[in-house]
């Protein structure tokens, strides 16, 4: 039985996002689903690093305290949660969630775990079979250059596993890497009874676009906004809600009384966020077309979104191959007036000479002046001739951990051996770089591996 209007809320946009807006939604909003996006490309690299060190980690551990606050009120009101907090290890995440559900006496929970995005152990076989895994960023035709350094490979799944878990009665769906919008497309497909067997691509395109509007949470309700000066109480921001019709048309809104705002500017800002060709937004569930999308403000904090279109989903899935790519050392040094510019130049020279003395051969070295040119580069407006202080940021990419440790030490030497008045912040611990190699893999080679398993937890 298809719902007339399906209401979905956003419960997070990234690992570490504010929890209060999600708690408010599950307590007070008239929603049926909460989609909780905890992943980003950068996050997946961090998680893969964690899992390499400890096979029980590599998932979003904040998910457990998050659900401590969000699941009991959601359960009370029959709200189902879909999250990608499984990260690089959904099985371990599911076990930890079940353990906490028991310890804390959560309301009974049927947990659906979606696996199959991890294709790390298939790379060698694919290569033997002649599949070329070209780099979508650099254009390199195959990954020969990095083949010996690959540590992970993750395909972006669509919503099929989520739909299956919901059909099996999951209250909480826990996935690894899927497209962010699939957290919302899945519930729409399940509730409206849409199917890939007889697809209406315009509706699926619409679902992808509505998911895109929700997946970044506060970014659609006045967060990170050019309108920030007129946003109401951003410290109490409300995450977005979509009221979706069976046609795919939707109203974007938020919980009355929450901070933030929803108007054509905040929705446009999210519409254009992190897309490339707006006529061909390639996602695992559909190719969405944004070019005919129209927005209409139809009330306070209510924007109607219509005109979405879609085309058949691609035969390939995007995958990110993580590979070891050296180490990064980073630290800050602040030099004062008078002649802060001269002192900054002196500090830079000193650092470069010290690297040479210490035998560190950087793959790349970057020295920024924070507050002057770290964001703008050559587009920076002219700096004051003699500023009171300059904050230098040294960043060094090295091939080895030892090189990064040495570079980190040399950042402190800029203070110890440098000009009078030079202050320093403790350099960060060097971090290993897991670089990402974006590529395409055949859908048919991944989809059959997707598994959904159900677990019971809570009282």
């Amino acid at each position: 039985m298809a719902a007339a209007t399906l209401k979905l809320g956003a419960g997070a946009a990234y690992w570490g996002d504010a929890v209060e807006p999600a708690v408010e939604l599950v307590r007070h909003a008239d929603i049926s689903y909460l989609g909780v996006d905890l992943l980003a490309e950068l996050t997946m690299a961090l998680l893969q690093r964690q899992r390499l060190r400890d096979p029980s980690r590599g998932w979003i551990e904040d998910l457990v305290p998050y659900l401590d606050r969000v699941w009991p009120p959601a359960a009370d009101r029959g709200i189902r949660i879909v999250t990608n907090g499984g990260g690089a290890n959904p099985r371990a995440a599911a076990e930890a969630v079940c353990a906490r559900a028991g310890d804390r006496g959560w309301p009974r929970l049927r947990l659906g775990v979606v696996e199959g995005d991890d294709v790390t152990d298939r790379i060698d076989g694919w290569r033997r079979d002649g599949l070329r895994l070209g780099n979508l960023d650099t254009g390199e035709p195959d990954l020969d250059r990095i083949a010996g350094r690959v540590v992970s490979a993750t395909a972006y799944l669509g919503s099929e596993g989520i739909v299956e878990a919901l059909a099996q009665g999951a209250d909480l769906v826990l996935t690894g890497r899927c497209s962010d919008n699939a957290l919302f497309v899945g519930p729409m497909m399940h509730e409206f009874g849409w199917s890939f067997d007889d697809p209406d691509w315009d509706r699926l395109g619409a679902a992808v676009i509505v998911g895109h509007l929700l997946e970044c949470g506060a970014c659609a309700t006045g967060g990170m906004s050019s309108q920030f000066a007129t946003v109401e109480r951003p410290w109490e921001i409300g995450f977005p809600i979509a009221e979706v019709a069976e046609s795919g048309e939707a109203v974007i809104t938020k919980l009355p009384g929450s901070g933030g705002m929803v108007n054509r500017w905040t929705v446009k800002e999210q519409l254009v966020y992190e897309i490339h060709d707006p006529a061909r937004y390639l996602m695992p569930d559909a190719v969405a077309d944004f070019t005919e999308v129209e927005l209409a403000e139809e009330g306070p904090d209510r924007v109607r979104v219509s005109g979405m279109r879609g085309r058949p989903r691609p035969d390939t899935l995007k995958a990110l191959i993580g590979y070891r790519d050296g180490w990064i050392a980073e630290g800050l040094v602040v030099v004062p007036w008078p002649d802060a510019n001269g002192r900054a130049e002196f500090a830079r020279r000193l650092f470069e000479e010290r690297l040479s003395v210490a035998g560190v051969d950087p793959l790349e070295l970057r020295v920024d002046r924070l507050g002057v040119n770290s964001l703008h580069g050559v587009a920076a407006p002219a700096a004051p001739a003699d500023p009171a202080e300059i904050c230098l940021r040294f960043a060094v990419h090295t091939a080895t951990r030892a090189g990064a440790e040495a570079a980190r030490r040399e950042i402190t030497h800029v203070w110890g051996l440098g000009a009078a008045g030079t202050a320093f912040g403790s350099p960060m611990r060097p971090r290993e770089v897991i670089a990402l190699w974006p590529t395409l893999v055949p859908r048919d080679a991944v989809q059959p591996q997707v598994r959904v398993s159900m677990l019971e937890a809570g009282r």
Partner: protein
Amino acid sequence: MTLVRDLAFGRSGDKGDTANVGLLAKDEAAWQRLRRGLTPELVRAHLGGIVRGEIEIFEMPRIQALNVVLHNALGGGASRTLRFDQTGKAFATILLGIELPGGTAVGDEGADGPGEAPSIPRGGAESER
């Protein structure tokens, strides 16, 4: 002198080594001025050597927005870049500082008149010059 910021608001972000900047025209006149005036060449000149790949500009006429896509602009992507702004969040604000040539006022339509939207995409050929 017309700056992009006189005409538009912006939002930027990343995917891999590619950054994109959505520029949202403030009104119809600003939209016409923006879509005629902003070119990949202007963007590249403003950003110096930051963008190592192609620059594409796509139009979203219904919402009067341009999407500027900057390939190979993030030092290899967020997990490996040495950039302080790892994910390109500041690119939008930086592009708002571009000065558009010609016409001195918002609403100056130029020679070809309003309403003839070029096909989409229109900026993809820049690297083939």
